[in-house]
């Protein structure tokens, strides 16, 4: 026996106990991964009826968009030549000489936009209803990485037509990445720029767009689908009233749920076709350095919010690294969300801080995007940036706090819809037709709120600044009044939205009364 073993023996520690401790620790790690990856679960489990709802399948619709892009992209690959000299002419050839070529390019572009928008909606829905909680942490992280890959598709695909707009925007993006700290900057430069020649850049972007990123996305998709199969769809956050048995009934994946998904895919496909028909794509002129000098370089809409942050005067020059650091912090926080939001409840009523943070994020992204669209190429003064971004955050926080105070102050804290400490009211309230359309209403309210809120906040702040700097005039006062009216509607929308998200549909009075009756029982 060695001295160390004697020491352990004297202290009452035996080798067998040590092995058992290691075994327990190993079992704990294996159990943690098994719980999350579902390695020992059965596959193709049936789904509950409440998942027959488009909001549960936003990610699936993004996959449908990806599939459409795969088909349209594969056809375009036959004609496209990835060299700086022929990229534009081959794109123009598809436009002018290939049967339905323009339509093909339009569908490819719009489904890419739809995929990015659906991925964003999927993420924000997951955030608000807190699907990232145990045991779905790895699903959330996988989904976030898939979101970044989707943005990568947008970034790499945008350059390929070699138009003056796309090349200038990509140059801006590459320039921004060079401001990242080493070795990250060097790695990204190596990955997307190579030797620095245009030929190398186009080839690398093309390779990433058609081979590497689709492969990575498919691998991640397989992993995420496997975890979805292991955990099943998440329970709805329906507030204190439990779901009726009818909504909990299980339906088979095939044919019931498959048919529902095909229904959604068909409707989405038809919408994409008709939008592409109504708004056909126009190809911008070919890139030349002379022509590029006349354009205000601007990335596509999904990167505009980041670009608008970088346009703030404070972040010019060496400040660019700080700005990119701030944006990176937001992304890292989103990835690590399951480990930051550690509360056990998924109820919106009990997660005011996180819900408000999410609303501020959505609001800021929307405001920055619209603002970026309206001010191409112009540097944003620091005071204006502080006023608009700070104002947006303060207004959303106040509206959210007010809405919580008005709606939830009388509501005792409950658990999820599965019951627990909440009173059982029976399924009568949920077994109405309105329950089936509640999600649709929520989405409509959300979009309306976002649009009105964005314009309302922007207009109000801009009107207030104009009023202070230029004095009062009829046009300024009218614009300010209209913006305030929009903001009021947005506030009312927020109140109504939060009410619906947590309590379902019906009048507030009826709901509160029904709840109180149940609570007393």
């Amino acid at each position, binding site marked *: 026996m060695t001295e160390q073993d004697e020491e352990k023996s004297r202290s009452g520690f035996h080798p067998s106990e040590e092995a058992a401790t290691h075994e327990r620790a190993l079992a704990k790690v294996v159990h943690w991964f098994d719980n999350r990856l579902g390695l020992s679960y059965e596959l193709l489990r049936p789904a509950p*009826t409440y998942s027959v709802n488009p909001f549960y399948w936003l990610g699936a619709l993004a996959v449908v968009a990806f599939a459409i892009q795969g088909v349209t992209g594969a056809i375009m690959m036959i004609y496209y030549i990835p060299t700086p000299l022929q990229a534009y002419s081959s794109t123009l050839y598809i436009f002018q000489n290939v*049967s339905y070529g323009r339509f093909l390019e339009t569908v490819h572009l719009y489904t890419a936009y739809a995929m990015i928008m659906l991925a964003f909606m999927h993420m924000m829905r997951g955030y608000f209803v807190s699907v990232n909680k145990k045991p779905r942490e790895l699903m959330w992280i996988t989904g976030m990485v898939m979101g970044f890959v989707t943005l990568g598709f947008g970034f790499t695909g945008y350059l390929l037509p070699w138009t003056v707009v796309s090349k200038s925007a990509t140059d801006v993006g590459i320039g921004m990445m060079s401001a990242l700290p080493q070795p990250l900057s060097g790695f990204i430069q190596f990955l997307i720029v190579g030797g620095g020649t245009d030929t190398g850049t186009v080839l690398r972007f093309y390779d990433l767009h058609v081979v590497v990123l689709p492969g990575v996305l498919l691998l991640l998709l397989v992993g995420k689908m496997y975890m979805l199969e292991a955990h099943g769809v998440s329970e709805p956050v329906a507030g204190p009233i439990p779901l009726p048995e009818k909504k909990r009934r299980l339906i088979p994946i095939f044919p019931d749920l498959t048919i529902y998904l095909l*229904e959604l895919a068909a409707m989405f*496909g038809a919408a994409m076709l008709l939008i592409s028909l109504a708004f056909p794509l126009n190809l911008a002129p070919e890139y030349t350095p002379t022509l590029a000098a006349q354009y205000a370089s601007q990335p596509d809409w999904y990167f505009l919010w980041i670009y608008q942050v970088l346009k703030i005067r404070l972040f010019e020059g060496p400040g660019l690294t700080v700005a990119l650091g701030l944006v990176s912090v937001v992304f890292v926080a989103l990835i690590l969300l399951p480990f930051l939001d550690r509360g056990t409840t998924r109820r919106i009523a009990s997660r005011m801080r996180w819900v408000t943070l999410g609303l501020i994020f959505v609001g800021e992204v929307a405001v920055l995007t619209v603002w970026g669209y309206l001010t191409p190429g112009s540097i944003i003064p620091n005071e204006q940036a502080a006023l608009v971004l700070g104002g947006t955050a303060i207004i959303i926080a106040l509206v959210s706090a007010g809405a919580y105070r008005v709606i939830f102050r009388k509501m005792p804290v409950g658990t999820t819809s599965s019951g627990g400490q909440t009173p059982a009211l029976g399924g009568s309230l949920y077994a109405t037709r309105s329950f089936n359309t509640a999600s649709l209403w929520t989405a409509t309210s959300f979009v309306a709120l976002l649009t009105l809120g964005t314009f309302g906040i922007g207009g109000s702040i801009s009107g207030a600044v104009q009023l202070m700097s230029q004095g009062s005039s009829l046009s300024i006062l009218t614009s300010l009044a209209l913006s305030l009216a929009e903001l009021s509607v947005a506030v009312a929308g927020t109140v109504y939205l939060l009410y619906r998200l947590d309590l379902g549909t019906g009048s507030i009075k009826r709901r509160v009364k029904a709840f109180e009756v149940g609570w007393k029982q």
Partner: protein
Amino acid sequence: MTEQAESMGVRIVGLLVIVGFASSLALWTLDTSLASGESLFAVYLSIDLIAFAMISYVYRVTKTGDSIRRIPLLAGSVMLLLLLAASFAV
């Protein structure tokens, strides 16, 4: 599900099958060299997809024993009529 709703569902499925079949047939007759072919292609394919979605909806709801709701069917039918009208205008 009421008998009336069920019979409505069955009748509409019959019509939708005819519409879907006709639009599929029309897709094969398109002249790909014409500029208008692009628009007609989108319209006919949309008709096909919407008809398919409506048939699936009726099948799914009937199978699960839920009642067929009129709003989705009416909205789909109006959309189909508009697209059929548009196919003549293109």
